[in-house]
């Protein structure tokens, strides 16, 4: 019984420790998100120092826009699609490539195997039939039956 209470106590302590750790982690995250709020979203009129900080970023944005416009107006690759299509049509496929005809000799090899199997089979049969042929187990049958028939 004491062991059960001890175990329950241990479980409660572990649960409390986990709860405290989880709460401390949660409050840390909340504080960080508070810090990351952008300055412009803060209620009230922006300060001059904040506007000064944004000015170079606006300049960079304007430069990017003008560069993108140049890229959009570039017509040097307009014919790329057609060029690629033409190239695909002109390149012969692997099948069309002239090559030395490959001779498949696998069927000769299989024929050789077939031949050797046939010969092996006929040799086995020869042995079996010789076994019938040369069977001398019943050689005394004639004399024994003659003795009985007298």
């Amino acid at each position, binding site marked *: 019984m004491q062991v059960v209470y001890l175990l329950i106590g241990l479980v409660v302590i572990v649960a409390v420790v986990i709860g405290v750790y989880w709460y401390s982690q949660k409050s840390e995250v909340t504080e960080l998100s508070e810090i990351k709020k952008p300055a412009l979203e803060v209620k009230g009129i922006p300060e001059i120092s904040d506007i000064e900080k944004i000015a170079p970023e606006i300049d960079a944005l304007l430069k990017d826009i003008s560069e993108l416009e140049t890229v959009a107006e570039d017509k040097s690759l307009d014919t790329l699609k057609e060029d690629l299509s033409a190239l695909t049509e002109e390149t012969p496929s692997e099948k069309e490539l002239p090559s030395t005809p490959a*001779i498949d000799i696998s069927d*000769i090899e299989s024929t050789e195997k*077939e031949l050797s199997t046939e010969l092996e089979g006929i040799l086995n049969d020869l042995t079996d039939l010789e*076994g*019938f*042929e040369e069977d001398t187990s*019943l050689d005394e*049958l004639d004399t024994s039956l003659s*003795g*009985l028939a007298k």
Partner: protein
Amino acid sequence: MEKTTKKLSKFIVYFLVGAIILGLFSSVAFAKGLKERHQEARAKYQAARQQYFKEVNWWKTARQQFLNTRRKYKQFRNVENKADYEKKARAFLSRTVDVLIRKLESLKNWVSNKPSLPESERQAIVAEIEKDINWLEDKKSEIATALPSQIREKAKEIRDYWRNHRIFVKKIIGQIWGARLDWVIERFENISSKIAAKIDELKAADKDTSQLEAWLADFNQKIEIAKNKREKAREKYQAISSLADANKLFK
């Protein structure tokens, strides 16, 4: 209700397991190749042959017992020895028929399981062997019911059969050889055609085929020799009428 559900789920589980096992076994059975079938046929023949040799041993024991009781009866002619002699004579004769049946069965087994024999020839040979087996089976039942005085007659019949049986077996073996050669010649001719086609293919590709052509010409010549020999052998084994003829031919 709960019980029914349990039963149903049990049935479904058993059914699924059964279906899986059945599926596995059927696929294994289907995958059984020709090679396995050849091996099975050979195993069957060897089992039949072993059975024949066992029967030979029993026959030898029965023969020895018969010879012993005969000697005893000749020495001491009394009713008891006579009855024993008759009993052993019947047993020996019956064993003789059994051993001859086993011998023919092993030959029949070999022929009927041989895939490399043309079907019609195989059936004809099996039918001929079965005819002899049936005759021997009849004799066996006659021996079982024969009177002591009839045993001698039965012994004569079996002895005459045995004398012809040896010629019969030699004729059958000749017939098997003829059929076997028919089969193999057909296969070789098939191989020859395949090689000829390959030579044409190689020639079209400007390859040197002289060696292969020489080999094929030699091969074809040997097929022709085999055909001639087969015909001559067929004529000879059909002409076998005595054991002396057969021995001369097979030596």
